[in-house]
């Protein structure tokens, strides 16, 4: 099968941090959320995919092709949205567009103008005068105007207000209606992913803890609440625990074991992605 993105045993070593044998597969037509705390390795992974930094081991294939050997061809089909503004601040939106558009074989000016209108951006405005939200809109307009088949986004919603975040999610949802397109979306705002992601990959301290279908993940994990004294001899049944004076809260992915151990004496609730992320990190 030709995956939009296929990462095998990817490795990158820095002083004090190592990305360890990452494995990710993303099929066309799906959105993958890439979650993890700050410093977990999300941006490093994305930079490796984009060949902005060199890998120390493993393989990265985009559209079935090696990301270095077919770099130009691959990047022509990728829409990349950055976590920060990396455009020339002194230029206007139109000037910046004129620079970027010359590099893409399928650049669509009408599409770009349509996004600029939709996002209410003034083409004459200098990039340095734009707010963070407006810069992100501009970045999105660039990424979506050359018929990209894979959109890679590094923390696109961080620092943005909920209304604008919802707007971005709607756009992404519309893009994915074309079953040839895929989105790889890193964030630590997990509620965004609960709305639109099909798959979730969770990275912590350079290692992937899981990479699975979102629904399967949400079905597998539960939050268990009860009194602290019930924890005696049962602590190892939880992935992560939080104890207070009034009781405990823990994350489990073994619901049957919890039910048989505690009977009906504990409260079992569905876990959110945030719960899974927080407790998985705490429990380690």
């Amino acid at each position, binding site marked *: 099968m030709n995956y939009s993105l296929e990462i095998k045993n990817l490795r990158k070593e820095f002083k004090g941090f190592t990305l360890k044998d990452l494995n990710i597969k993303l099929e066309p037509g799906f959105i993958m959320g890439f979650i993890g705390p700050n410093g977990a390795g999300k941006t490093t992974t994305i930079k490796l995919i984009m060949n902005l930094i060199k890998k120390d081991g493993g393989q990265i294939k985009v559209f079935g092709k090696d990301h270095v050997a077919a770099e130009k061809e691959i990047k022509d089909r990728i829409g990349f949205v950055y976590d920060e503004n990396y455009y020339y601040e002194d230029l206007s939106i139109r000037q910046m567009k004129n620079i970027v558009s*010359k590099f893409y074989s399928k650049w669509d000016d009408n599409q770009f103008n349509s996004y600029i209108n939709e996002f209410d951006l003034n083409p004459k405005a200098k990039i340095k005068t734009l707010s963070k939200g407006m810069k992100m809109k501009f970045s999105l307009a660039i990424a979506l105007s050359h018929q990209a088949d894979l959109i890679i986004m590094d923390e696109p919603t961080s620092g943005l207000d909920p209304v604008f975040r919802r707007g971005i999610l709607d756009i992404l949802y519309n893009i994915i209606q074309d079953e040839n397109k895929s989105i790889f979306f890193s964030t630590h705002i997990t509620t965004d992913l609960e709305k639109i992601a099909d798959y979730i990959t969770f990275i912590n301290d350079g290692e992937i803890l899981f990479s699975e279908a979102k629904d399967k993940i949400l079905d597998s994990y539960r939050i268990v609440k009860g009194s602290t004294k019930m924890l005696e001899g049962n602590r190892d049944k939880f992935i992560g625990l939080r104890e207070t004076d009034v009781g405990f809260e823990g994350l489990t992915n073994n619901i049957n074991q919890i039910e048989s151990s505690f009977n009906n004496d504990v409260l079992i609730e569905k876990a959110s992605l945030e719960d899974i992320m927080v407790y998985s990190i705490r429990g380690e």
Partner: protein
Amino acid sequence: MFGTINRDLTLIFSNKSQMIIILSIIPIYLLVLDINQMERMYFLVLVMMTYIFVMTPFVFDMKSQTLSMMNSLPLRRKDTVLYRYLSVFIYFLISIVYSGIYLWVIKKTGLMDVEYFNLKMIKEALPYVLATVSIMFPANFKFGPRLAQILNAFLFSFTAVAAISLSRNGLGSLDKGIMGLLKGPSLLLVISVAYIISLLVSMRLYENRDL
């Protein structure tokens, strides 16, 4: 190549302060140099104009930290380096045209009696530009913005001082000592080889650089 040149020219002529710098180069030289050095001014203008055209995109990349953005575009790093080295010849040509028109206007309006085209000076300026660029480019492709900025400041000062010195004495001053051996066709050959080596080194450095 066209995309890279388009980007560079957009940046070079992007704002008023940038335009003022470019427009003021020739008047500054006219004010600084005395009348006896006028015949060498054409050499100086060509060298410094090309230097400014070549280095402006690097300065913008340092200021805006745009290397990640530029490298996410469909362009191989090897091509980025190659286009940068080839673009030097285009900027040299633009400098000839620009200074030619500018100096022609000065001469025609009677402000000053200056040369606006001198083939001998062009032949002398090109190897000088290529030699300078052969040192500057690898440094800029290898190092991060801060270190590259320091190196650029040093190289800019060196280029300016050396160019003024050469403009005073002429390339005839190279006849003395070891440099005398490199005059004429040998000089061009040595600089061409150095330029190609510099290109290959820059490609290697940039391809292996983490951004």
